[in-house]
């Protein structure tokens, strides 16, 4: 269970730290006025400052909940959280597997895993869908539009 307040805080901290990173990085490029005009770090520096200030404001608003925030004390229930994880974790594993397995194998395994493991579909049907996905990707991208998708380290090791 995640409260609306915690979510607001986390997001404000996330945006705020991005703002700090932008400010720090843009200092390297120089800020202010030089012979060549406005230095290249100036504009990012200003946006960074705005992000930090805005995030601080949102942070405070999150800590001191206004009337609207009090209406929704719980932003994500534990059931919802499980559903979110059920979608996101496999997707993240899929993305992580691409450099090794390549797009085709990874996406086929991904489709098979999310359909067959929670028993949404029978194993043969999940297999068929996985194969169809990989094949469709191959036909559309590699053949029709000649966009080469990553084949992966494994395929390279086998000499494809």
């Amino acid at each position, binding site marked *: 269970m995640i409260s609306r307040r915690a979510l607001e805080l986390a997001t404000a901290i996330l945006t705020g730290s991005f703002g700090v990173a*932008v400010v720090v990085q843009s200092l390297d490029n120089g800020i202010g006025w030089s012979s060549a005009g*406005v230095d290249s770090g100036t504009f990012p520096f200003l946006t960074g400052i705005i992000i930090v200030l805005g995030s601080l404001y949102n942070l405070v608003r999150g800590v001191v909940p206004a009337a609207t925030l009090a209406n929704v004390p719980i*932003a994500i229930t534990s059931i919802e959280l499980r559903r979110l994880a059920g979608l996101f974790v496999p997707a993240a594993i899929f993305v992580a597997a691409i450099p090794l397995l390549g797009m085709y194998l990874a996406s086929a395994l*991904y489709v098979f895993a999310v359909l067959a493991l929670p028993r949404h579909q029978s194993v043969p049907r999940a297999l068929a869908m996985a194969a169809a996905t990989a094949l469709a990707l191959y036909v559309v991208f590699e053949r029709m*539009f000649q966009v080469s998708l990553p084949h992966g380290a494994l395929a390279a090791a086998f000499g494809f």
Partner: protein
Amino acid sequence: MDNLGELLHGFTIAITVPHLALMVVGVLLGILVGVLPGLGAPNGVSLLLPLTFGMQPVSAIILLSSMYWGALFGGSVTSILFNIPGEPSSVATTFDGYPMARDGRPTTALATAFGSAAFGALIGVILITFLASWVAQVALAFGPPEYFAVYFLAFASFVGMGGAAPIKTVVALAIGFAIAAIGIDTVSGSVRLTMGIDELVKGVNFVVAVMGLFGIGELLVAVEEEFHARAVSSKIEWREVFRAIGRLPRHSVALLRSAAIGCWMGITPGGPTAASFMSYGIARRFSRRGRYFGTGEVEGIISPETADHAAGTSALLPMLSLGIPGSATAAVMMGGLMIWGLNPGPMLFVDSKDFVWGLIASMYVGNIVAVVLVLLTVPVFAALMRIPFVIIAPLIVIICVVGAYSVSNSYLDVVMMLGFGIVGYLFKKLFYPLAPLVLAIVIGDKAEDAFRQSMLMSKGSLGIFFANKLVTCLIVGGIALLLLPLVLQLARLRRKPAPSANETDPEKVII
């Protein structure tokens, strides 16, 4: 009339067999992404973008814009039949569309929605036809300060009229600017904000951001609530279609008012979503049958639909004539324009007449094609909604992954896309607006360049933004819009005892 002659010439470009075929393909793909939750017009258009690189710019824009019309229509189909908005901008259509369909009048609801949507789009296109070239002519005299002022006004109007919490809008905008600044600086050639990752020198492509923010983000929001598509009958009775469209003129006040709201919100970038909510809210307040809203009122469908499409269409006006997109999807299309080697802005009307007028003419034709196709295909796409979400979700993930990868064959883009997905989810959940973020990524560089060029002209004095009447007006207008939320809040504090219960939860407006 000059414009009419140009328009006729445009029709000779738009009405050719290959272009009509592209419209059909575009509209069908658009309805598809509009119907599927998790895929919307912005990422649908950006998915298609890499496939248009080999095309003529006119053909490419016809394909992409047709997809946009299709998506706008497709979003209404699911809103009405399933109570699931396929697009953020069609959320307001669910309020009265679904109750009417549930009461056994799905055809009436759909036909009313499509009819008023087509009317809204028509008004938007007519506006573009007569106004776009005039605006472009005015804009030809613009220098960098005027351009910066227009950008400033556009961004300020998001803060003042977007409907989201103003500071959240400011944060979203500023993050977009910072992301736009990543990579090589176009003026000095120095490398900025790479955070120690060398590959970021190439910058962050807006397509990657759109895929994550709108694709993965929306998917995560959708998966939270396990919805069952409880459809009402999706059969279309053709006689009822014509009867419902024939009844539309009776609501001409609502139609015209909503179209005006939509056009205004489309041109001053407020976007279709804000437009449809605003139009619905105003209709409920002013309609004689306002208290029946929410139970299947005809005007409750007409108002958001007309405004939605009027805004979606007229969002292309500032994109064409000023180089400022009026909605997230228009921003993606403008990114496409730049990739095809065109320079969005007033010079477009001088340099690429065929492109501009071909596009405008295709908007007339494309919307007609869209209405016909959407009516014909309602049963097909309604059937699509019965495919379980567990099957659709992984497919959309794969589409987004492949889409992000194919932008520049970079694995880093895929990882960033996933990161943007989390950000998109958090932002949606907490009502940070996404459209200004995307807009800032697309035109952040141009706004910065305009600012720096103005500073070079004035040798560092901000006085250049008040040097003549035009630029002063624009800047003052922008500042006024920025301060608008503050003023409203102060006014509300003054007459404090006003209960806030009767207001339609302002946070709902953005999504």
